């Protein structure tokens, strides 16, 4: 299953905190697509995924100061 989480407009640390909570509702193997525009997120979201043992399956810059990252639980 693929769930999309829009966090545009949120700044650090909220994208990570929202992702953490969205992840809690998913089961192993599910993917969470996180859209974000907080610049720090390009560092903190991959680091958060690594710290929790989640695999990053996709990471793309979608425009000026906007990105999406896909993380598998």
């Amino acid at each position, binding site marked *: 299953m693929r769930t999309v989480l829009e966090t545009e*407009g949120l700044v650090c640390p909220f994208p990570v*905190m929202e992702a953490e909570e969205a992840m809690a509702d998913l089961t192993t193997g599910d993917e969470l697509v996180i859209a974000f525009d907080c*610049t720090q997120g*390009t560092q903190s979201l991959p680091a*958060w995924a690594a*710290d929790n043992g989640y*695999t990053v399956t996709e*990471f*793309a810059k979608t425009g000026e100061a906007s*990105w999406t990252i896909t993380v598998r639980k």
Partner: protein
Amino acid sequence: MIFTGLLVGGVLGLVLQRGRFCITGAFRDLWVSGSWRWMTAFLLAVAVQAVGVALLTATGAITPEVPTLSVVATAAGSLLFGVGIVLAGGCATGTYYRAGEGLVGSWFALIAYAGTAAASKTGVLAPVTTWVKGLWTTQLTTIPAAFSLPDWVGVLALSAGVALLVRWQRRLAANRPVTLQLAPQRTGLNHLLFERAWNPLLTGVLVGLVAIIAWPASWASGRHDGLGITTPSSNLVGWLVTGDESRLDWGVLLVLGILIGAHLSARASGEFRVRVPSATVIRRSIAGGLLMGVGAAWAGGCSIGNALVQTSLLSWQGWTALVFQVLGVGATAYFTLIRPRNQRRAARAAGASRPTEHLENSKAASAVVATR
């Protein structure tokens, strides 16, 4: 010679923006996620600067003066500053470089911070600042001096402690590698500077190096200090509203340089966009900025002047400020982030194990509380 402030500030703005160096985040992560990743990078910047400043002082190039500790002013001011930076979503430099990235919340925080810093240093709030500073004064300068040790012993101890932290963090990072990076679309220097993700520890070293260069550069202009944000912000406001050119010094150009450097760096990286936050975030940013200005004026420095620069001089003021900033951040993070998170977790756990009737009851109960 004050124009070098613009250059040093410009480079610092680039390093902060591209390196994602956030002191608020470093302090906040200690409490919110228990991570020392950014705190280690921050302390590495302090240690690098401490070594550089000790060498510059030994050669006689600079002769930094260490202020005596005013206990209440430093502790209370830093606590207020710590509260402020969580509300504002960024410390003194963080607010400058995010303003350069186009975050409108940071524009509000910056104006509030510079305004109350000026009011507390040279304006209507100055008598309060003077009163707080006089409450509990001491003759304490550097921590090694209090134990009759030369300062270089402190530099060695700090470097050794930070080296252990760095080793620990590097091991953690090696065990949990980041699996996928953004696909590179640029090459060479353009990729390295404006696209590639920077390693936090490397960014910490670069911040430390810029902080070292700031000393002789500022000294040559007649401003006998290292990096600083609060007094320069206050001087910037003073110069803007009075036209008094004596306030336009190296420090003012430094903070303008950070703003410009971060802006150009964000532009070059495709990371600039004007982003307008919600009304709640704007209100919090302004409240945070107001507290930051007052707190930093009382404490004699912010996350840079005290937590980064005075700490590298091993001063009591710097380390007291660092501890109380981290405590202020922790208390605010608890009420605005950690407790709400725990409540949501508890609600989710209750919702999963009980029928929905319970959730509706609790909603009704909270509605009653709200209307009282």
